[in-house]
């Protein structure tokens, strides 16, 4: 599975095809070995010289895999020598499989723009689309005032999909399959990054064999292997080691909220097992599906459709509430999910004080609460075992996405509140932009790692992401209050937005990634 190459030599920096021959004398190798042994050799054994790559991507998540797919599938960039470094064993992703009535709890909302990109690079055909669910309506309302905004497309417009719900593992497995098909890259999974250092000029006794890697990032893996990167891409998540190496600060704040996720089954829908359509994402001839989100003072709770009678829950709430939700029995947990879309925030606050017995409390209280059945999701009937988990929510944006021979993408560059479902899509837009930037650089003979070559990537993505993060952050803050005047204003706000077709359309197009690029 992995392709750690046999002891590679400095010869591999030559442009000549398959330069398997070693042209360094043994003394040189020894001196090189000592040099590395003195600085970084974990085992003390003789060390290989760094192997030079055009692109070293650290991180084998959706962002890293998408970048590699994009580079490998383009004629212009397919000649680049690329490596992917990933700490996990990716064979587990490759072989990931679930029955059709079970879903992973890590699901992302892919905008049509992101899906279009995945199609362009040829990866979408490797996605199991029977596990993907499209939705074309959004119901969003204020948990305190009930003020409503429904985001369906105006009648007359051809059916438009707002987003596709896709399990992250379905996506990464598909990207890996696509990469396996393309080949031509070095995969170093199960490899921890031990350290990243700046290269220097390595000289050997023979003048011909000096190697000036001044300014090149040298990635050292737990295996002892060293990679010199013309361009080092940090797709290594929110705690990005690549970002730390580049000395790029990441700023922002924690929301003091956790996102509780779970896979939920809903009443009144059936899973059409006969449908194996691989052409229409979320095919299944499914009736129009709707995404629901209710803004509670503790944070928004969202129920997003999955194929058949399933949905994925993303409930942003206080860490203590998240802890309680995770501790509940499945029946009580399901009752709380139903309550989250039906009961008042006062009732909900009380329910969070009980360690059990929510089921009875909720069914009793529901009878005394008025809600519009048409505007809320179908009743939750069950929760898939082992899918209730939580993670802290943060807002971060790196000071810059590029440095000398470094580019940051996805969560390494920015993290956002999940309320708008934009996190992964922002990463996909990063990848598109970076791939475009690299393509332009290759076509024009630029050094793809030079900061000048990377400028357009930073220019395109920094401002756009910053704006998106800001908007999402403001929405979170606007709704994370029960302060009466603000509530009154925002009620007016949502109500007003609902009356304004063009504005609503703008919001929806942003959500779908089809609007003017922010």
């Amino acid at each position: 599975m992995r392709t750690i190459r046999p002891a590679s030599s400095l010869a591999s920096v030559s442009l000549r095809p398959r330069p398997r021959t070693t042209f360094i004398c043994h003394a040189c190798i020894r001196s090189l070995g000592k040099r590395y042994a003195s600085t970084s050799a974990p085992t003390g054994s003789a060390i290989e010289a760094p192997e030079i790559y055009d692109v070293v991507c650290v991180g084998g998540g959706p962002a890293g895999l998408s970048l590699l797919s994009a580079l490998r599938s383009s004629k212009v960039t397919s000649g680049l020598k690329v490596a992917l470094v990933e700490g996990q064993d990716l064979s587990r992703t490759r072989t990931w499989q679930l029955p059709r009535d079970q879903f992973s709890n890590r699901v992302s909302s892919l905008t049509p723009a992101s899906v279009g990109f995945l199609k362009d690079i040829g990866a979408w055909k490797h996605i199991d689309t029977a596990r993907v669910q499209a939705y074309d309506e959004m119901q969003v309302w204020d948990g305190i005032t009930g003020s409503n905004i429904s985001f369906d497309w105006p009648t007359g417009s051809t059916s438009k999909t707002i987003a596709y719900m896709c399990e992250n593992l379905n996506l990464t497995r598909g990207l890996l399959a696509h990469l396996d098909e393309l080949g031509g890259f070095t995969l170093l999974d199960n490899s921890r990054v031990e350290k990243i250092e700046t290269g220097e000029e390595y000289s050997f006794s023979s003048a011909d064999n000096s190697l000036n890697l001044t300014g090149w990032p040298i990635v050292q893996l737990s295996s002892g292997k060293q990679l010199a990167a013309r361009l080092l891409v940090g797709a290594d998540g929110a705690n990005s080691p690549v970002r730390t190496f580049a000395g790029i600060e990441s700023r922002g704040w924690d929301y003091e909220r956790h996102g509780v996720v779970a896979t939920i089954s809903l009443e009144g829908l059936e899973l059409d097992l006969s449908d194996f359509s691989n052409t229409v994402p979320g095919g299944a001839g499914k009736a129009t599906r709707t995404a629901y989100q209710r803004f509670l003072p503790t944070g928004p709770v969202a129920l997003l459709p999955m194929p058949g009678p399933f949905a994925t829950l993303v409930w942003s709430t206080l860490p203590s509430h998240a802890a309680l939700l995770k501790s509940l029995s499945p029946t009580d947990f399901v009752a709380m999910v139903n309550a989250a879309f039906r009961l008042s925030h006062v009732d909900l606050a009380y329910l969070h004080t009980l360690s059990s017995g929510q089921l009875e409390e909720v069914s009793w209280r529901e009878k005394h609460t008025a809600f519009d059945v048409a505007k809320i999701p179908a009743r939750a009937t069950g929760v898939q075992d082992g899918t209730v988990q939580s993670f802290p929510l943060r807002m971060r944006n790196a000071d810059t996405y590029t440095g000398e021979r470094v580019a940051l993408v996805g969560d390494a560059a920015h993290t956002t509140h999940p309320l708008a479902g934009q996190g992964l899509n922002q990463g996909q837009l990063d990848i598109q932009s970076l791939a475009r930037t690299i393509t332009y650089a290759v076509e024009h003979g630029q050094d793809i790692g030079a900061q000048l070559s990377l400028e357009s990537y930073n220019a395109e993505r920094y401002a756009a992401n910053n704006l998106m993060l800001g908007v999402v952050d403001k929405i979170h803050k606007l709704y994370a209050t029960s302060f009466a005047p603000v509530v009154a204003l925002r009620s007016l706000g949502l109500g007003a937005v609902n009356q304004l077709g063009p504005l609503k359309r703008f919001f929806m197009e942003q959500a779908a990634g089809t609007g003017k690029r922010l």
Partner: protein
Amino acid sequence: MSSRKVPCLLRGGRKWCNGPSGARRSFALSSRKTSSARILNPDNSFATKSLGNSKFYTTTNPRSHSFSAPPNGAESNYTTVDPREVAHFNALASTWWDPHGPSRLLHLMNPLRHDFIKSCLDSAPLPFTYPETPASASASVAGPTASSAASSATSEPSSAGSEPTSASNSSARKLKYLDIGCGGGIFTESAARLSSTLSATGVDPTPSVLAVAQQHLSQDPVLQRSGKLKYLNTSIEQLPVPKTDDERVDILTLFEVIEHIEHPAPFLEKCMPFVKPGGWIIMSTIARTWTSWFTTKFVAEDLIGIVPRGTHEWERYINEPELRGWFAKQPGWGNIQNQGVVYVPGIGWKEVQGSEQWGNYFFGVRKDD
């Protein structure tokens, strides 16, 4: 030989002067003097310097060979390099590759040079096919992907696997570049990196900028080891004139050079024999207009200082019709292409149709095959 005509291209639009004395006279007339050396000049500095007025070209003696000889007949001593220019660019050497330094505008312009070359090549097919050199057949900057092709591809070891490096159209022949006045190597290096390039040679008379170019190349060991790029610290006059087409190049480039040349006509004539039939001379320079004086001298150098002061001598700028007119008289050259470009602060270089008449422009002329 000394009686041969030499163009006096300095200010005032003087037409022709006879021999070295004429040349000296023209120096005296100009406000700057110094040696009778002319310029070859280091790449970059995107604009500038003078040529006489347009009358010069329109009255050029079509017998081009007659004025390509050195003014004093001493072939080996003759040079188009102006020492003042050499000194100026020596001073800029250390910042050549600073992306925010004085050469930033050149770095930003560089991709457009490639685009223009491509448009020229697209306008007329290259006539010859030469054997492929396998060593440089890789599009990879770092070299072929070697065993990685066998990499993770557990599934199909398919198409791409075995031939990961054939990104470029391998059937097209690879090009040889000669970059006169290469400066710090901004263009030469980028040309050498292209998968479609067989070799690129940069030539510059200014030792310190060439040292910068060499130093910068050494920081890309992959490119260095490819052997595709070499630099020569010399002037065009010192280069042995090729005797066969094999020794000639497909693309001879003069980027931001001609406006630093005191006597462009003999300089261009020096360049011509280096080009293969069907090959191109590609240059960029700037028109000598009030607009260009205002933008390159007053705004760029004096007002906002994005270009080092003294980089340009507006009087040496050459207008597109002058170049066009001159090349029209050169037997065996044609298919003239041009493209005006404008730098828009905050946006970058943009192609602007018609701007070749008043600002920076590219100019390409093809040697007949």
